[in-house]
């Protein structure tokens, strides 16, 4: 009984949030890692691509909502998602054509491409705000909870409960799905191998008859789609605000690096490492321990390893520690 309570409280405050946040980071990290893996640069505009795609999705969602098109209990935004993806794919292909392709052909150093992506980031950042302004945008509709903590409490009669939001379930489901698909695509299909070959040695890829433009295009299509999916799911779960999409870039990069850049599996694991280290290490375990050992005298200690003030630091500390043990990330890129 008490053990069940201990587990529920742990699940509610640590497990479920970490898994959700981890999945959100993982989705973002997949896109970053893909661009790095194939095009060989760190794409700083990824966060803004997420934001841009989400913005388009929101605008379309509003149109749908006005004309009462809906897929209740799922959020309408999922219906609008393809259009957001389409817009972002178009944007990124255009950006590649106008900006990145030039440096690729000139065989510029990766840092130049990275700076160019910073430029794109600035441009998108300004553009998104010009369109929808810097404010908070709520676009979630549909059923918010699959089960709430109080429902669980009422049902089980326990003192603790666990709540699961529909957005959490959708996020986890979609990220697992996308991860598996991406992995299969990269490892098992000819196009996937061609992408890896291209990233390894471009001249030789051309000499083998690989269409490098097609490879680049596929990469952007995948990365942009991943970005928009990540952005929309994140926005559904929290809310859409351009500023946060810039801020979330840092943990996404951290996740990418911990896992090993260029490696999709690494991106996913990295996302969860970051989220767990933020949440599990800053959670005060007082109640959990008290459920398990009711008689213990904690003397006022709340059993918090690190204050939440330092949660960002703690995830970076974990990052540095992981890199110390495995200098190229958990899974080699």
């Amino acid at each position, binding site marked *: 009984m008490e053990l069940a309570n201990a587990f529920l409280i742990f699940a509610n405050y640590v497990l479920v949030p970490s898994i959700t946040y981890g999945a959100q980071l993982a989705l973002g990290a997949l896109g970053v890692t893909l661009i790095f893996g194939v095009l060989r640069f760190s794409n700083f505009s990824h966060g803004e691509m997420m934001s841009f795609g989400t913005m388009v999705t929101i605008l379309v969602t509003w149109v749908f909502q006005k004309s009462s098109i809906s897929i209740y209990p799922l959020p309408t935004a999922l219906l609008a998602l393809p259009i957001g993806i389409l817009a972002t794919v178009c944007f990124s292909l255009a950006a590649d054509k106008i900006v990145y392709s030039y440096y690729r052909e000139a065989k510029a150093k990766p840092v130049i491409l990275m700076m160019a992506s910073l430029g794109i980031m600035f441009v998108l950042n300004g553009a998104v705000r010009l369109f929808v302004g810097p404010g908070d945008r709520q676009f979630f509709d549909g059923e918010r909870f699959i089960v709430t903590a109080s429902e669980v409490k009422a049902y089980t009669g326990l003192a603790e409960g666990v709540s699961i939001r529909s957005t959490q379930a959708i996020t986890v489901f979609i990220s697992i799905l996308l991860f598996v698909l991406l992995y299969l695509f990269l490892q098992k299909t000819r196009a996937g*191998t061609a992408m890896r*070959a291209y990233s390894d040695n471009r*001249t030789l890829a051309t000499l083998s008859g690989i269409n*490098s433009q097609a490879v680049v295009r596929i990469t952007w299509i995948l990365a942009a789609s991943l970005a928009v999916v990540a952005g929309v799911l994140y926005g559904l779960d929290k809310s859409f605000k351009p500023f946060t999409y810039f801020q979330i870039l840092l943990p996404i990069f951290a996740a990418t690096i911990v896992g090993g850049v260029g490696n999709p599996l690494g991106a996913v694991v990295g996302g969860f490492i970051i989220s767990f280290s933020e949440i599990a290490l800053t959670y005060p375990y007082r109640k959990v321990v008290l459920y398990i050992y009711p008689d213990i005298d904690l003397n006022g200690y709340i059993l918090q390893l690190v204050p939440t003030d330092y949660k960002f630091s703690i995830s970076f500390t974990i990052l540095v520690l992981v890199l110390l043990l495995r200098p190229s990330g958990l899974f080699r890129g």
Partner: protein
Amino acid sequence: MSFFGGSNMYGGYGPIKILNGCSISVEPGEVSVIVGPNGAGKSTAMKALLGLVELTSGDVFLDGKSIDALNTRQRVMAGIGFVPQTENIFPGLTVDENLSMGGYLRADSVADTKQEVFKLFPVLGDRRKQLAGTLSGGQRQQLAVGRALMTNPQVLLLDEPTAGVSPNVSAQLLYEISNLKTRDMAIIMVEQNARQALEIADTGYVLVMGENKFTGSGPDLLKDREVKKTFLGG
């Protein structure tokens, strides 16, 4: 006009002029070998044939038609295979994937060709799952040639295929290359291992400072005293 080659090629790397009017060509079922001192422009000439180096003047032709307008990939699709001198493998892919990439353009099954390559270079068969970047120097070289063979091209360009390859394998390699003639493949090869290479050559070119210095059949060149002394190490 021959089947494949470049005539009167001028060009280089931006302002740096390397090729000064050199011409190289090959017929189906024949082997042309290019020799010359280091930095003569041999590799540059090969790259020019593939469109990897821009020509300021001169023509590259295939099957009687100029292919100057084609880009590298289109030339590859037209049936030209190339093994560069350096960076000639995908280091991050396994040996097996490297070979598969070699057969990327082929519509037919590549399994048979792969088996042939493994027969020619048994070590590649043993290391199918090893990352190519971790192969030894000579193994890399074998893989590079194997990758090009996978394309089953009409024209095969090889830039120093035997560099760093142990004598037994390199002898066999040259033997196999001369065998390819029977498949009507046209082969151009740069070699520093010139004696052996010229022995199987139908035409030999000695390139110096981006110009053809001597041209002749392989055995003829081997006999030429001056060529022997200045380029083949006496």
